[in-house]
């Protein structure tokens, strides 16, 4: 959370000649980060990001305390000024105004204090109070309310003021709400409270405070107020946080309470408040101080071994310097042995400092990280090898050079999308608290995302791919299976183009043992979105790993795509397991090949693969067979004959050719194309 602090206010508590720029720089380097420094007239405003572990820095005084330890390290003298708290709190013995307090569970409220003022004159605050509040981003209201806001900024202790006469029965009961109780808060919002919310009820059963977050408007101070109940507490931070989350409502006060407010600081705040009430409101104390503090925290001690300091920080810091740093931050030394010391933790750091490493951080940050050298860690034998990434890069780069554009889309799909592609939402991993309807289900396939992208960019013929995890529901108590998947989309081409991409990728991965089969299932995801026959299943080592095919027209229409879409979709994680790099050297042939084209007339329903297989198996001298031309049922094959031992003669080739023609004729009724036709 960010806070705003005025330089002039800061310097009321920190005597130093440091400039605002110096303060911003050194505070950032050693403690909390100054995000912004703005000049306002002849003052400066620091915007400071306070980390969650440092609620003690949520105030002007807290920052001044930090700087008093930091600035001297940069040779800038700085001295923290004591707070003006020489105040008697229990001066009234007679005619004390009554207040009965009941706390239902002491863990809810570690410390409860209250004090009543009489003779209040409501008017605007003194100019300096108004100005400081407004420059720090809080609206000035009146002299009473402003005191609580002013001291929250100055000391980090939120507090609340009630009109004492609006608390019926002079009674406060602090309890947890139940059964949907309601409160109208100062901002005039009526809020239904989740069960277990900390509230205060008065003697007439009215809820007058939403503890630690905001007061009720039924008891607020207004221009007619004469008597004020000042109320300073600390609360169970977890409770406050839960309530704020459930109500989706936070205030400056709750942000401080939920990070933990120091109960030892409560009386300091009370004393400062009394001073201000007397000065700004002409008020008189009209009650005994009520201070319910059943379990003050015990003194906290932490041991520190000097060897560990060096091990963590990496250099040796002289012992005296370590002690000086710790003392400047408020730690006191209890025992001091050669290599081991024990210190007590100052009360304002009670929850933050527990183990030696916490002390080491204090020493290192004040010593200054910029004084530490930069070293690289030693190289280690880590006994791990990960090939995944190598193949991933290889395939992605190949695709890029083949003209494909890589896309990255969100892993989540909408319910509407599941409907279009025919996936049952019950089968998907679902986000319980989605950000929008667009992103609810974790995708089980990359194909819908690619189709969306094709639809969005439909002005051009596109070639795109994505490589990402898909998420398969594995049922109760099990994390879903995340499978790295490669999906490629081509629009406006044909089956052979996408198949060629598949074949080339297999070549790049050194995988030869793959097989395409007809894919007959109609009710699967693939079955529903792919053309019922223009598709083939990819099988490798008897596992079905993916599909190549054309998307159904109906699906295209749903996405608003007119072009034919061809997709190749495969489980990339399985491919990586069998990908190979080893290539074999073969001596170059010494004798020239003979190459010729033969055209055949092919009867229907004969797979080209079969023809090629028959041609190849005719003779070992046939080195390769390629399909070069297709015209109606005529197909032309280019045959390369080559013998490793000798130059082939016409006669030899003639013999093989005859065998090819005969066996095609015999096995498949395929005829050599007759030139007469």
């Amino acid at each position, binding site marked *: 959370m960010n806070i705003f602090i005025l330089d002039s206010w800061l310097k009321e508590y920190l005597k130093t000649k440091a400039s605002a720029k110096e303060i911003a720089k050194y505070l950032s380097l050693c*403690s909390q*980060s100054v995000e912004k420094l703005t000049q306002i007239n002849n003052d400066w405003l620091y915007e400071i990001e306070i980390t969650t572990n440092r609620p003690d820095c949520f105030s002007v005084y807290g920052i001044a305390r930090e700087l008093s330890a930091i600035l001297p390290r940069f040779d800038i003298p700085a001295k923290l000024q004591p707070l003006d708290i020489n105040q008697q709190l229990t001066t009234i013995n007679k005619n004390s105004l009554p207040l009965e307090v009941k706390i239902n569970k002491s863990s809810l409220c570690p410390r409860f204090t209250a004090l009543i003022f009489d003779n209040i004159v409501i008017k605007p605050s003194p100019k300096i109070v108004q100005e400081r509040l407004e420059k720090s981003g809080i609206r000035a209201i009146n002299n009473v309310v402003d005191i609580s806001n002013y001291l929250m900024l100055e000391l980090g202790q939120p507090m609340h003021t009630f009109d004492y006469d609006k608390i019926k029965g002079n009674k406060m009961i602090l309890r947890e709400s139940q059964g949907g109780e309601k409160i109208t808060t100062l901002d005039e919002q009526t809020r239904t409270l989740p069960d277990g919310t900390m509230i205060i009820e008065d003697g007439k059963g009215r809820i007058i405070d939403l503890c630690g977050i905001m007061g009720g408007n039924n008891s607020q101070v207004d221009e007619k107020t004469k008597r004020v109940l000042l109320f300073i507490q600390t609360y169970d931070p977890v409770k406050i946080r839960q309530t704020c989350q459930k109500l989706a409502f936070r205030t400056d006060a709750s942000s401080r309470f939920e990070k933990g407010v120091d109960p030892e600081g409560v009386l300091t705040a009370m004393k400062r408040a009394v001073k201000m009430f007397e000065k700004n409101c002409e008020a008189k104390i009209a009650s005994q101080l009520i201070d319910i503090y059943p379990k003050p925290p015990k003194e906290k001690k932490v041991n520190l071994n000097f060897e560990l300091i060096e091990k963590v920080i990496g250099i040796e810091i002289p012992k005296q310097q370590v002690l000086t740093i710790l003392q400047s931050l408020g730690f006191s030394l209890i025992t001091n042995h050669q290599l081991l010391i024990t210190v007590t933790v100052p009360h304002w750091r009670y929850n933050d400092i527990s183990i030696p490493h916490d002390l080491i951080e204090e020493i290192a940050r004040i010593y200054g990280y910029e004084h530490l050298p*930069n070293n690289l*860690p030693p190289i280690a034998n880590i006994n791990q090898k990960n090939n995944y*990434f190598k193949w991933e890069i290889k395939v992605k780069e190949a695709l*890029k050079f083949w003209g494909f*554009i890589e896309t990255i889309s969100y892993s989540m799909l909408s319910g509407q999308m599941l409907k279009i592609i025919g996936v049952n939402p019950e089968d998907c991993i679902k986000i319980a608290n989605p950000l929008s309807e667009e992103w609810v289900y974790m995708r089980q396939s990359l194909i819908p995302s690619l189709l969306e992208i094709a639809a969005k*960019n439909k002005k*051009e013929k596109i070639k795109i791919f994505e490589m990402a995890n898909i998420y398969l529901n594995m049922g109760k108590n099990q994390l879903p299976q995340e499978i790295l998947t490669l999906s490629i989309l081509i629009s406006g081409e044909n089956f052979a183009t996408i198949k060629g991409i598949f074949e080339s990728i297999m070549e790049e991965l050194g995988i030869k043992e793959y097989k395409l089969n007809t894919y007959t299932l109609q009710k699967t995801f693939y079955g529903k979105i792919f053309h019922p026959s223009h598709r083939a299943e990819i099988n490798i080592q008897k596992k079905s790993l993916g599909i190549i095919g054309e998307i159904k027209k109906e699906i295209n229409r749903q996405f608003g795509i007119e072009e034919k879409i061809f997709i190749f979709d495969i489980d990339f994680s399985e491919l990586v397991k069998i990908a190979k790099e080893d290539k074999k050297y073969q001596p170059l042939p010494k004798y020239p090949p003979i190459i010729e084209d033969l055209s055949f007339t092919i009867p229907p329903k004969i797979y080209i693969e079969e023809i090629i297989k028959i041609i190849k198996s005719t003779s070992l001298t046939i080195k390769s067979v390629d399909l070069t031309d297709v015209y109606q049922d005529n197909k032309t094959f280019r045959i390369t004959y080559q013998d490793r031992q000798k130059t082939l003669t016409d006669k030899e080739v003639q013999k093989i050719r005859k065998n090819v023609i005969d066996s095609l004729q015999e096995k498949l009724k395929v005829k050599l194309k007759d030139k007469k036709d």
Partner: protein
Amino acid sequence: MNQEFLQNLKNQAISTIIETKSEDELEQLRIEYLGRNGKITQLIKDIPTLSEEKRKIMGGLINENKKIIEDALVSQKNNLQRQSGNQEKDWFDFTVPGIKPKIGNLHLISLTIKEISEIFARIGFNKVSYPEIEWDWYSFEGLNMPQNHPARDEWETFFIENLSHPKYGNAVLTPHTSSGQLREMEKVKKTLSTDRQVPIRMLNIGKCYRRQIDASHAPMFYQFEGLVIDRDINITHLKGTLDYFVKQYFGLKRETRIRPFHFQFTEPSFEIDVTCIVCGGKGCSVCKEGWMELGGAGMVHPNVLENGGIDSLKYRGFAFGWGVERLLMMKYKIDDIRLLFNNDLRFLKQF
């Protein structure tokens, strides 16, 4: 005379034509096949001697093959002329637009991940990846962030409906790659016997998810997480590693600084700044007094080491987890993260 003979004759002619090295040689071949007494010419002369049926078939075929051989001669002649020198005086237009192969594009995130991985590989880091959908234990609890801890607020987390584990808690979409820290420790422990060292040099890169969307936050984004664990690891190694990375990625002129910060899973914790790439460190509107925030880091908290089964008295480590998009947006001056996931091809084609 038959078809086979003709086919062989043609094959022979073509292969010898392609082999020729000079126009003289080529002329010899022309005479050999198409000259007055050439082999093809001879066949044509013989046509009238064939039977009527054969005449029809062979007539067509011979002419077809004659044409093929003629074409081959012409095209080889052109080739030879192109190859031979003595063309200094030819006017040549080198400004003709080149014919480029059609090349696609890798996504900027992929390019960046590759670059990051290579930079860290050079100092011995091993790239891994861990689940995106993860148990609460790995994403929070085991990283020293118990339920209801205010530090959890920083991670606007997506929860998975109806999925939890009796020991590891609810399933979430991991909001950071730090969830890989405990996974890596467990993996390394499994592969080594207890008395041996457990050096870790991990670079975990993956998708993370948070419930936020605006110009600098997308609900899905990438992080890279470094984790180094060994006997003698200290803050100077963290400083050195991150300074090395920044100089490799942004350029040798960049300076880095580390500032105290707070994370539950590291102690001490830091944030790393780099001198502003816009103003070079003088201070401008996009930076903080000359510095830009890169990301968090810290020394692995002893509780986290113990949760990962590693003896925190013997071992120490450091970790950092930074946003991939943040880095590339700084480097390429991209002002809206959502552009990276919109898949507008006009954007993707720029990289």
